[in-house]
């Protein structure tokens, strides 16, 4: 096992730069998820760590060693690909033992390592099958088995669950997390799915347009998003964001929206009086107020069983609320909602940065 450090790493394709100088330090044994929308550079960064893409600038270290010029096979990494990349003409056993075979390991070592990995992943009964005889989830598991067999310093995962159906995806992400807890191998996992990121990561790196927007634990990102992008990207349903002007008057702070609504703020809000801001609150941080809250008209009610999503109109802006209690909302009715003041986020409307009080 080893740490991985990425220092000012850039990637250019001709004149087009797609990764603009990224710095991340991943301690030994950590499970880090790179998350972001398509085209944000997360897969490119992973492939540079893997040695499948050339590095246009900066330094990548695995352990103490700079690996910029080290070929993929000598980086002591294992990678799980989105389409699994299993060799179609090899059995599961041969697929899993292939890298050891290429490294000249003895038959007994290969047999033992394949057996160990197959046991960990419950693949023992499938060892003599060909990839085309396996289901998507089984193939996925073989791809992971192939990675485990090598006992590498670092695991790299490139959207490994995106070809699975929703139910299997949930199951596999738990398995991958459990596997990491068992093996404790440093892992870097790329996904565009923020739920996957939240549930699996020790730390999340949120990327956007080739830069890192924020690095932190899942709850850090959720509770204290550094900017509007992270606030909007993390959390489902998405955070409610309303534009307005910050007002301070004596001890009282609030945000006045253009539609004439006053949004309440806690005492420790940052920013100056008159500053253009974005007021954010998560759907689950709304309480039912009596008369004191924000008056909204209910548009759509979506019960999911565990919770109920309510989409409502707040003077022309659509907001979403999530309630775990069953209130019996009806579309068309007016109700009063109150954001929990200690959970309200405030961002500068110009820079998008979080305003800290």
């Amino acid at each position, binding site marked *: 096992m080893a740490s991985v450090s990425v220092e000012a790493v850039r990637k250019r394709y001709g004149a087009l730069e797609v990764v603009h100088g990224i710095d991340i330090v991943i301690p030994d044994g950590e499970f880090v998820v790179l998350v972001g929308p398509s085209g944000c550079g997360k897969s490119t960064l992973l492939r540079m760590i893997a040695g499948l893409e050339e590095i246009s600038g900066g330094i990548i270290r695995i352990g103490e060693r700079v690996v910029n010029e080290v*070929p993929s096979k000598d980086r002591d990494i294992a990678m799980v690909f989105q389409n699994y990349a299993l060799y179609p003409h090899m059995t599961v056993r041969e697929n899993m033992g292939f890298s050891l075979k290429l490294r000249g390991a003895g038959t007994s070592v290969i047999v033992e390592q394949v057996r160990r990995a197959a046991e960990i992943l419950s693949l023992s009964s499938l060892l003599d099958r060909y990839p085309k005889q396996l289901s998507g989830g089984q193939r996925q598991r073989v791809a992971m088995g192939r990675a485990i067999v090598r006992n590498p310093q670092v695991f790299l995962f490139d959207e490994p669950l995106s070809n699975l159906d929703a139910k299997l995806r949930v199951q596999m992400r738990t398995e991958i997390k459990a596997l990491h807890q068992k093996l404790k191998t440093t892992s870097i996992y790329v996904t565009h799915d923020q739920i996957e990121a939240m549930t699996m990561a020790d730390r999340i790196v949120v990327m956007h347009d080739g830069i890192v927007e924020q690095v932190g634990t899942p709850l850090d990102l959720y509770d204290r998003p550094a900017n509007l992008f992270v606030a909007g990207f993390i959390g489902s349903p998405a955070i409610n964001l309303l534009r307005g002007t910050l007002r301070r008057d004596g001890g009282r702070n609030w945000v006045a929206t253009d539609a004439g609504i006053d949004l309440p703020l806690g005492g420790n809000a940052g920013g100056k009086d008159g500053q253009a801001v974005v007021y954010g609150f998560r759907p689950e941080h709304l309480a039912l107020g009596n008369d004191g809250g924000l008056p909204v008209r209910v548009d759509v009610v979506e019960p999911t069983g565990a919770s109920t999503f309510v989409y409502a109109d707040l003077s022309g802006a659509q907001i979403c609320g999530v309630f775990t209690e069953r209130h019996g909302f009806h579309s068309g009715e007016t109700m009063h909602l109150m954001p929990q003041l200690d959970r309200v986020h405030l961002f500068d409307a110009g820079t998008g940065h979080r305003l800290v009080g």
Partner: protein
Amino acid sequence: MVAVLDVQAGEKAPGRLSQEAVWGLIFLVPYIVLFLTLVIYPVGYGLILGSNPKSYVRLWTDPVFTRTIVNTVVFLGVAVNIKLFLALLLSGFFVHEKRWIRWLSVIFILPWAIPSIPTILSFRWMLNAEWGMLNSLIFRLTLEDGPNWLLDRWSGLGMISLVHIWKYLPFWTLILLAGRLAIPKDLYESADVDGASGLQKFRYVTFPSMRNLYITCTLLSTIMSLGDFNSIYLLTGGGPADSTQTLATLGIRYAFGMSEVEVGVTTVVVALPVMLPLLVLMLRRMRKGEQP
């Protein structure tokens, strides 16, 4: 609705065809006529012409025929295999995504795209022992006479194979290139991470993925090369002294050179016991599709 009503009407009057079936037959007629006149008739007539036992006796007692059989087997065995092996290697070069390689591939395809007669005739002139370009060069450089390229059975067959390979290599390279392009890139990346060298990637990824295509191409090329008339006829004309004939050219020699049409057709019929199993094998492979 109309079709439904017609079907019901057809059911009510058994023995009469529905309107749909009649139209179907009308549309089938042109194809049936073409098939009968252009396939069944010529093939059937050929088989009748080739069914005279005397022709077989004539063939088997003619030393030219036995030599031709040997020539054909050697030509197919050597030319087809070298051609496909080279095509497999070259497809690995042309698969690279570089602009200059794209342009080079356009030039490379030319021998296949341009007509046989002028190109093969120019080979014939180049290889002429007395005044051909090749031997003129050899003479200038060494002051020795070059070999009689086309005037000896084995060097003649060698040159025939060379011209055949030159002519058809681009086509098979293209086919195998398509096969290579169909191999998912992540298999190679996975092999990179697993630690495979270039040769190991070929051995463990490329070739297993292309094995079926390669075998099918070999079968198909064998069948097609058996019918390659141009490379032989235009280069050596089957000579000298009928020593470089193959089955494709020998039929012409009997039928038109010696006015023995039945014997000429029989030379082709002789190839059927080899050809038909190859055809069946190939069609079966193609129907089965890609199976590891």
